[in-house]
């Protein structure tokens, strides 16, 4: 081998059009051997499209792909695999009822006369998992292991196929902070071994921590590639959004008023197991403050919100909203004083097959201005939808008549936020309102929540992101295993301290327990 080419993969002048939009406009991306190269951009900037082109899922209209300096054709994922390109999709491609081992070897099975040679495969997988510290139980069914484990299975799948160009599509979106750290370590290990990594993300912290270089995309265009060590979070986010972005939430000190929500001894059963998911939780939220419930996913936050909003019936406890006992009230009754940005935007937040305007009036279609004698007042609905779309900058293909299913995740979330905040209720329950959103949208939603607080509304924020918890909240409650284990002032507590409470290593005896 004479001159080793500098780049292992080059994507040159890639242009990919979809009806009505240019998803990738003359994008050039060069990946060095053994580097971790981050691909940064807002939702809809074209990151996934570019990676899909590389993985053979889309065919670009223009441009070429080179490997080690030679032009290659990638028509489908099989070609990509043959070239050593592997991808961990954001949504895992695993078969739930198969074992981990079967999932790893699926499609690349070693066989002898048509019979599976599991023992040989197992040896190879075991060796790989030992080498990279990716420990999984090979005989467990995928459905019974955690999301973090499932991701390891996906990574092992790539390694099993001897891929040396690894694409990670938003790998951290589903992981706990600890799992994120482990993943970062694994990625560094791959890079040391000479594998090249493309890392799609819009989380600046992670990019700063792990990547060697960053390519920033904005609205389908390549804004530039920079060395991570020569840049900082602020500069990157400005590149990504195209304007100076406020990374820190600006807010004045809270001026809490009277109690809006008072929860006493709330117990909510779990759908998954026999025990109570929320166990005797007491707290209150006052007007003009943002109370944040922090915790690792699955510690009862979801069920607590279900209990408050009426999606689930609490077994014990009392909920008072604006002085009224709503412990047994219907969802409709509760929503008179409460708006709710739900955790699962596809299950609860939206009717995906309805149009945007139909979704924007989901709770209000019975109001006098939207209907008369049971007939929908279409012009008013349209007008209202147009105002919200304008005001909250919800982007979609065809405006009010866009079918929501076809909108991007970020804009779907914006639509929900627009709808809920415009209800102007005294209490706003926001569950992971910025999950999966990009910096620009997060900035916007954060500022909106602060604005709601300043209007004198009470905000109950449930978040898994410690950054968000620390910057946005006026008061923090930590939830662990269905109980509130501590209450903190964000100005006086450190992230490390919170982490200990979240992991169950520490707890205040005073916090939350009650009869």
């Amino acid at each position: 081998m004479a001159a080793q080419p500098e780049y292992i993969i080059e994507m040159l002048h890639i242009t990919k059009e979809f009806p009505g939009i240019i998803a990738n406009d003359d994008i050039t991306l060069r990946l060095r051997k053994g580097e971790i190269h981050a691909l940064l951009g807002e939702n809809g900037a074209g990151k996934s499209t570019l990676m899909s082109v590389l993985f053979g899922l889309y065919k670009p209209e223009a441009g070429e792909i080179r490997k080690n300096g030679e032009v290659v054709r990638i028509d489908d994922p099989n070609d990509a695999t043959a070239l050593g390109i592997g991808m961990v999709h954001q949504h895992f491609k695993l078969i739930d009822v198969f074992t981990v081992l079967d999932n790893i070897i699926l499609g690349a099975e070693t066989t002898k006369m048509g019979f599976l040679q599991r023992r040989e495969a197992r040896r190879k997988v075991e060796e790989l998992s030992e080498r990279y510290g990716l420990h999984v139980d090979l005989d467990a069914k995928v459905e019974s292991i955690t999301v973090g484990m499932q991701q390891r299975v996906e990574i092992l799948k790539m390694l099993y196929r001897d891929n040396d160009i690894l694409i990670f599509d938003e790998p951290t979106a589903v992981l706990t902070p600890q799992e994120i750290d482990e993943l970062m370590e694994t990625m560094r290990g791959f890079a040391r071994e000479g594998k090249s990594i493309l890392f799609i993300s819009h989380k600046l912290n992670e990019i700063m921590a792990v990547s060697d270089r960053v390519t920033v995309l904005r609205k389908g265009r390549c804004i530039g590639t920079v060395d991570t060590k020569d840049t900082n979070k602020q500069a990157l986010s400005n590149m990504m959004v195209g304007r100076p972005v406020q990374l820190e939430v600006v807010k004045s000190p809270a001026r809490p008023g009277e109690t809006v929500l008072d929860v006493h001894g709330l117990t909510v059963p779990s759908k998954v197991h026999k025990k109570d998911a929320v166990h005797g939780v007491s707290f209150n939220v006052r007007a003009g403050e943002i109370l944040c419930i922090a915790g690792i996913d699955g510690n009862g936050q979801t069920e607590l919100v279900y209990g408050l909003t009426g999606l689930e019936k609490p077994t014990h406890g009392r909920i008072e909203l604006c002085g009224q006992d709503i412990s047994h009230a219907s969802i409709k009754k509760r929503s008179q004083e409460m708006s709710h940005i739900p955790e699962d935007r596809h299950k609860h937040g939206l009717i995906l097959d309805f149009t945007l305007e139909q979704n924007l009036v989901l709770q209000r279609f019975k109001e006098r201005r939207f209907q008369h004698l049971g007939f929908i007042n279409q012009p008013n609905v349209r007008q209202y939808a147009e105002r919200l779309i304008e005001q909250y900058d919800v982007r979609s293909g065809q405006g009010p008549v866009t079918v929501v299913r076809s909108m991007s995740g970020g804009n779907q979330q914006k639509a929900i936020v627009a709808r809920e905040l415009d209800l102007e209720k005294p209490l706003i329950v926001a569950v992971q309102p910025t999950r999966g959103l990009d910096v620009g949208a997060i900035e916007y939603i954060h500022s909106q929540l602060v604005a709601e607080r300043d209007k004198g509304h009470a905000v109950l924020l449930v978040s898994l992101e410690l950054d968000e918890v620390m910057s946005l909240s006026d008061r923090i409650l930590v939830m662990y295993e269905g109980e509130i284990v501590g209450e903190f002032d964000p100005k006086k507590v450190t992230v490390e301290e919170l982490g200990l409470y979240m992991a169950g290593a520490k707890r205040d005896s005073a916090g939350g327990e009650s009869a």
Partner: protein
Amino acid sequence: MKNGRLSDFMRRDGTRTVLSSIVSILIGLVVGAIVVFVVGLTSDNLTLTSAWEGIRLIFGGLFSTGRDSAGALTFGFNSTNIGNMLFRATPLIMTGLSVAVAYKTGLFNIGAPGQYLMGTMASLMLALAIPSEVVPAGIVWIIAFLGGILAGALWGAIPGLLKALLNINEVIACIMTNWIAANVVTWAFDVSNFKNLVESTKSSYIYKTTFNGVETPKMGLDILFPNSQVNGGILIAALIAVLMYILMNKTTLGYELKACGSNRHAARYAGISDRRNIVLSMAIAGGLSGAGAALYYLAGNTEFFWNTYTSLPATGFNGIPVALLAANNPIGVVFTGMFMSMLDIAGTQLTSLTAYNEYITDVIIAVIVYLSAFSLVIKMLISGRRKKVRAAQPGSAAQADASGETGSGAGPMPPAGADTGKGGGEA
């Protein structure tokens, strides 16, 4: 720019739906014609000529006017055929609406036959029991009509209740209530005194409603289509179809029903009572089937065979292909209902004018209906092909990107493109 407008028109969902229905009807008719041809060749009593005649009748049976003196088939305006087609379309349109409305709200109403039977029983009994000497016949008609709707609605509400309260699948509940209805109706007429004892050959039938002077007004249609059974029922059915279209698309009730059908969780989240709406939707569906029965039997000269009811009325089941073919659009149902009854007429023409026996015509109709139900597949093919042309990529991959969503796919919705990668990614 003419091309642009055409492609715009082609891209509209409605256009595609109508187009795919027409294509699948044509495919159905062609395959039906092939069956006619094959049967014609293989039967001893059928010649190549009669096979050709059979094919012509399949396509043009509605306009068949018999044979001329030379024995050749003649075609033209046939008021009897068209009038009868409209008459037989009436209940089909109603059961089609029943299935379509339920489907729009996320429910599969396979209970139309049972609801239709209950509607039959209620409307016939009311029409025969209320003496028209005391109450004017027109009022009796209205009472019987409303009674039919109510009986159908109540019967439809049962699976609705079971689904809403006990989460029992509506398909299973509907199948069982169908047979309960069959037996209830048999029993009810068995112990009643509505059995036709006057005309001795008709002893297994119920009196026609004309015995009590009750019949659907003709509304002038008998002048347009003389010598046929047609009456104002078809106009009422069309009117109900329009009302259903308005209900589903223009009212808050329709919005609620569709919201529950599309995403029960989101509807509940928004404070809409999903249980109430499931029951309501099934009741409306049942009411429509019941109305279909009432319109058919209140015509005055239709006879109901009550004796030992061991099968379910085909009209109820035929509502399913009628609705499917119309892509569950209430207005479309009017046309597909007429198409189905046209096949019926073509079948009778085939039987009476050629040596094809009536069972073969049933087979042919079944083939056509079966293939017509492929309209969804056809629609997918139409859409898929168009996308392939535009984007030069597998149809499924284009789905998520129709609006340009190419971002990092935040949230739990996987980009459809990624799905196509699955097989390859693991290969």
